[in-house]
């Protein structure tokens, strides 16, 4: 076992915190799809259900108050984690997709008009593309796509000013590419948008927040979305950060309980304060509390140190893959400017076959278009094989992937 450490803790020790990983031979290299969960997160989730399961915000008995405090405490943790000044700016959703759709159906519904333009990039996940296409269709607006530049492995940011105009109402882009790992220069992009337009900016940080420091205040982005399950938290919880003045002005998304202040049948009802205005119905209380535990876990180790560990694994994989014959690599030329994602193809081997054969070696990777069909089309591909790393992955696991490749090539030769 590798003696690698992250912020003074050995990876071998970290692995013991993850029940699914500890004591198995599985090399789990599909972290961009979902991360595994540490015991503390699983305990937070089951602890809520076994000790203080009650509906928050309305009980007058102790466990309901305890649930409320834990739920709202998690919101404060998320706000701090994102560098937000105000926890009322943090709205819990089901996932990143729902957070982005919330913006499309509320802010977009009120602010996008016929002839307006929404700018996004060819590199986006479908969840940061399709909601804007649907919005544009409803409004007679247009979605414009910043082209992907295969040489840099990211969007051609220098062409962004040319796409921005008085018509541009929103610029939406990923913090980190899910299929290539490319890290976008968020602060610079926001500054560029501000310089050339009055457009609002939405950052899809589903692949960023688990691995890099987020700073919504420093970046000055208007909206940011993320999913708990990619950052050691449970599935079914996402976050939308929005600037307070924008959220205040937006209509509710879903109507129902908890999002109202007063309901009338003879005049218009009144909405609750932020953030509850956007949290209709009983939320995923246990999941949100478990997200809080995930943030505690990440904070204790530090995302910056985790990122350095992932980059070392990525550089190792890229160095070895570049030396192999018959391998095509996608994305940035090296690990610099990349999160722990390595996307590649083995010549003459369909990614589905590569994935199935790696599974035979107990190596779990993702194969396919990774919900990036326009990007794959730009690359002239149907899909890739994608290995993605996190804090508990080791050089030995990366080597198991690398050792399996010549075996696959031999089978297909």
């Amino acid at each position, binding site marked *: 076992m590798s003696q690698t450490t992250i912020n003074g803790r050995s990876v071998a020790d970290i692995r013991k915190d993850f029940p699914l990983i500890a004591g198995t*031979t599985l090399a789990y290299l599909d972290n961009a799809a979902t991360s595994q969960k540490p015991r503390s997160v699983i305990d937070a989730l089951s602890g809520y259900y076994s000790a203080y399961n009650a509906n928050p915000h309305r009980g007058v008995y102790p466990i309901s108050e305890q649930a409320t405090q834990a739920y709202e405490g998690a919101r404060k943790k998320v706000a701090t984690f994102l560098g937000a000044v105000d926890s009322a700016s943090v709205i819990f959703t089901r996932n990143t997709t729902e957070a982005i759709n919330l913006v499309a159906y509320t802010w977009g519904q009120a602010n996008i008009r016929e002839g307006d333009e929404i700018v996004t990039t060819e590199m986006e996940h479908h969840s940061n593309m399709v909601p804007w296409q649907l919005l544009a269709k409803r409004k007679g607006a247009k979605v414009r796509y910043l082209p992907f530049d295969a040489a840099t492995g990211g969007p051609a940011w220098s062409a962004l000013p040319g796409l921005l105009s008085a018509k541009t109402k929103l610029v939406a882009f990923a913090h980190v590419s899910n299929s290539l790992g490319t890290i976008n220069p968020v602060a610079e992009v926001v500054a560029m948008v501000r310089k050339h337009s009055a457009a609002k900016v939405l950052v899809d940080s589903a692949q960023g927040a688990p691995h890099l420091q987020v700073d919504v205040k420093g970046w000055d982005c208007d909206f940011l979305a993320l999913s708990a399950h990619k950052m050691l938290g449970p599935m079914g919880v996402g976050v939308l950060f929005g600037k307070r003045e924008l959220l205040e002005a937006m209509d509710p998304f879903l109507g129902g309980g908890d999002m109202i202040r007063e309901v009338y049948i003879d005049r218009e009802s009144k909405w609750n304060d932020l953030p509850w205005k956007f949290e209709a119905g009983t939320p995923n209380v246990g999941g949100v509390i478990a997200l809080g535990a995930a943030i505690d876990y990440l904070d204790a180790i530090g995302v910056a140190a985790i990122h350095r560990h992932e980059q070392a694994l990525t550089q190792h994989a890229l160095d070895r893959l570049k030396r192999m014959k018959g391998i095509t690599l996608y994305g940035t030329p090296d690990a610099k400017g990349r999160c722990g994602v390595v996307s590649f193809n083995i010549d003459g081997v*369909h990614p*589905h*076959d590569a994935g*199935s*054969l790696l*599974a*035979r070696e*107990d190596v779990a990777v993702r194969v*396919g*278009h990774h919900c990036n069909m326009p990007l794959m089309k730009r690359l002239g591909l*149907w*899909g890739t094989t994608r290995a993605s790393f996190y804090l508990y992955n080791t050089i030995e696991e990366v080597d198991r992937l690398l050792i399996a490749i010549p075996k696959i090539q031999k*089978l*297909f030769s």
Partner: protein
Amino acid sequence: MENPQEDLYREVIMDHFKNPRNKGLLPEPQIKVKGVNPFCGDELELTLDIKDGRVVAVGIETQGCAISKASSSMMAEVLTGKPAQVLTDWVAFLKTKLVDGSADAWPAELEELKAIEGVRNYAARVKCALLPWNTLVEGLQEFAAQKGGKVTLTHTEEAS
């Protein structure tokens, strides 16, 4: 851990993948069907000539993974001389075998396809194996509906 994919890339599969049978399209086929699996990018073109209700010539070109190419090749090899109804029954049999895992005995002509039974545990791979067969059925059905006229169409795999 038992790994059901252990069997999937056996010699017989790789042989069909590397040396596909009935490769190439017929020049003036009575049935020409394109099969597309949008979930994994597999694509094939199947051409058939029919005489007196039976397949008399087969040509097929498949782009895709080893499973879809092997399944295409194995299918092409057993079509000649078979009446449309037998083929339709075979496809129904294959679906129950690969999707539901039925215990029914394999027809002698399809025994080689036992090699792809391992896909059963992976819904995404079942589509790879069934694409040529579903494409075949759609072509035969349209041919029957047209009462012998030439058929050109595209079959697209749907979400399960």
